[in-house]
């Protein structure tokens, strides 16, 4: 990354970057399979590279590709609780598009994703604070922010459940001190999803901060010196140097956050609890899938939901990759 960064280009403003034609990503391709681009002669490596990736490919095929195919088939069947399925064509899908729960869970998932994505700019800000030269205990703070990410989601959920408790929770006690009468966070339909999303945002922050922190370290300090000589304020430096050069990391973090937000299940399950009356109004896509497949024993229908989730995530990610060309700097 650092070798291809040239001072003048990197210092360009975001507006200029947007005007530049899309980066010729193809020029990196030769190095992809056949070692360093300069020496790669098409086909000269034969099967060797494949042999090296075979262990990984086998894993991907067995644990990802095969289940996808099997689920795709299952979604076209009516399946009993103990296996034994009959082929029914697209009947699961025709029933699914008429199911209100699908749209409800999609809307909830989007709301959750939206709130968790607010974490990305927050993480950019925190990461650049942590990267300030001369900050003492930077490693300690970094570890502190990362802790929620490595803690077990269930344990996190248990603690937040206590914090959110309407009568005895710390959050409402705190709000009470400033005269605000806090809601029953996790048992009111309008606040339950927000409460879960706050926890989701909080627990994904650490990962984003670490990734963005690594991205920040790749920005050459000369750029800041140059900007300072030109009289740029700290804010201007952040806006015109830090953010544009950080876009590849921001892009990565955004993609990962969106994908993991679409898979919201464990936090929702553990924070709301399986007997929460607001649950039917707070379904996420994956929770909807879980309920049909593992509570109602309708495996074929659940497989159809899983296929819909797969397609949605694929489409959203593809869209993000397309839009990437418009705002991500090529460094």
């Amino acid at each position, binding site marked *: 990354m650092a070798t291809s960064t040239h001072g003048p280009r990197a210092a360009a403003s975001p507006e200029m970057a947007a005007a530049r034609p899309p980066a010729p990503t193809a020029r990196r391709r030769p190095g992809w399979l056949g070692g360093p681009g300069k020496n790669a002669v098409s086909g000269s490596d034969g099967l060797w590279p494949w042999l090296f990736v075979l262990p990984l490919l086998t894993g991907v095929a067995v644990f990802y590709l095969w289940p996808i195919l099997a689920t795709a088939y299952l979604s076209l069947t009516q399946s009993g609780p*103990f296996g*034994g399925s*009959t082929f029914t064509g697209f009947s699961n899908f025709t029933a699914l598009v008429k199911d209100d729960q699908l749209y409800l869970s999609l809307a909830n998932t989007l709301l959750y994703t939206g709130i968790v994505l607010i974490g990305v700019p927050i993480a950019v800000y925190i990461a650049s604070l942590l990267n300030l030269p001369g900050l003492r205990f930077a490693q300690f703070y970094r570890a502190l922010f990362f802790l929620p990410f490595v803690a077990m989601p269930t344990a996190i959920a248990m603690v937040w459940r206590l914090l959110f408790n309407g009568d005895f929770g710390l959050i409402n006690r705190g709000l009470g001190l400033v005269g605000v009468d806090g809601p029953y966070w*996790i048992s009111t339909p309008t606040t339950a999803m927000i409460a879960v999303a706050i926890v989701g945002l909080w627990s994904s922050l650490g990962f984003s901060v670490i990734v963005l922190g690594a991205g920040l370290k790749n920005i050459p300090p000369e750029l800041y010196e140059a900007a300072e000589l030109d009289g740029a304020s700290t804010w201007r430096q952040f806006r015109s140097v830090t953010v544009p050069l950080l876009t590849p990391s921001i892009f990565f973090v955004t993609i990962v956050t969106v994908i993991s937000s679409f898979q919201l299940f464990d936090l929702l399950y553990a924070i709301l609890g399986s*007997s929460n009356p607001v649950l039917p109004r707070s379904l996420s896509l994956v929770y909807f899938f879980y309920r049909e497949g*593992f509570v109602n*024993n309708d495996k074929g229908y659940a497989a159809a939901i899983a296929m819909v989730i797969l397609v949605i995530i694929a489409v959203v990610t593809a869209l993000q990759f397309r839009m990437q060309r418009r705002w991500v700097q090529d460094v």
Partner: protein
Amino acid sequence: MSSTSARRATRSAALALTLAAALVATGCSSSSSDPGKSTSAGYSTPAKDLSASITYGVWDQNQVPAIQQNLEGFNKQYPNIKVSVNVTPFGEYWTKLQTQASSNTLPDLFWMNGPNIGLYASNGKLEPITGEVNAKALDPANYPPALVDLYTINGTKYGVPKDFDTIGVWTNKALFDKAGVPVPTGDWTWQQFQDTAKQISDKLKSQGIYGAAGGMDGQTTYYNTIFQAGGTVVADGKSGYDSPESQAGIKFWTDLIASDASPSIQQLTDTTADQWFTSGKLAMYWGGSWFRAALKDTALAKDITVLPLPKDKEQATVIHGVANVVAASSKNKQAAQALQVYLAGKDAQQQQGDAGSIIPAFTGTQAGFTKSMPNANLQVFLDALAYAKPLPVSKNTAAWNAMEADLLPQAFSGERPVADVTKELATKMDAALAKEE
């Protein structure tokens, strides 16, 4: 609509096929059964030197010490049958069991509960106990009839209960004293219960203490009141919710909550009723006999006494219990059945009862349970046998349990009228029940 009926049709076709396959499979196995086995009875007491290695699947770690005692006794009779106990926590137990059942790798003997017996029995996954009963190795008359019924599917018995639980009103006497309200006698009506709860709440609500708590869970709350009002939850493959009796059973709880005698549904979601009780902030809690474990050895224990549930048209409580069942796919069926018979016997049941963690099902072995909290009048849970009704279940209980959990809170919170909610619940439940056939 046509697509749903198509789904239904194919589903029943699939079910018919599985059933047919199961029939063929059992037919094959009985004709090719091993020579040592009497084919007519299906079970004969195995030879003392029968050598086998079998697995026993359970979910409660607390009961393992008593099970180990049982197994010592079993191995005195059959020294060459090696039993390994597999403990899987309840949360994963059923997921794991379903996977094992799909691949016919179930444990040889395992715990079964009411909500799941229909699913496993009707899919041919379980070995009936017909042979053992015919051979007089097991006598269903020794166990609570309501539970023998629970494990009888289409006239075939699949297990006898190993334990049972009933529901009572757990009462904190200290809070009654604090409110200056006398502790009721055991013989009381719905109205008396509501009044008592209201009196205590009115006196002590400023201190965050309530008289009683509304119900979020059928087994400990609204199933009982539905039965007391003369209603049903599920009967003859139909939902019983759309009847005046069942509506009265639900209304009992909406009234309790609306009168502010109980915390609101939101409060009960954040802090469950049993937590209110164990924190000393609830005077009366409708709970199962298993709740004893949460109270024994706590500071609260000395103030606890148990009252029978109040009466409406009739006296009633829900009874449930776990049964040991043998997998139809077991390769050591005779050994598994021998263990099933031994665990259901009087000696093994007595040992279970003396360990104190459960109420054993065998009549006359239950004294150990009442002695475990001598001042709490746990006898109420045993007396309840006289008027107990089995936990309502069907072939796919989980499907309509989810509907109850989705819809009933809307009535409890006062958001929708009881009659509306129960009507919708009955319609949806009937659709789910129809899918089972």
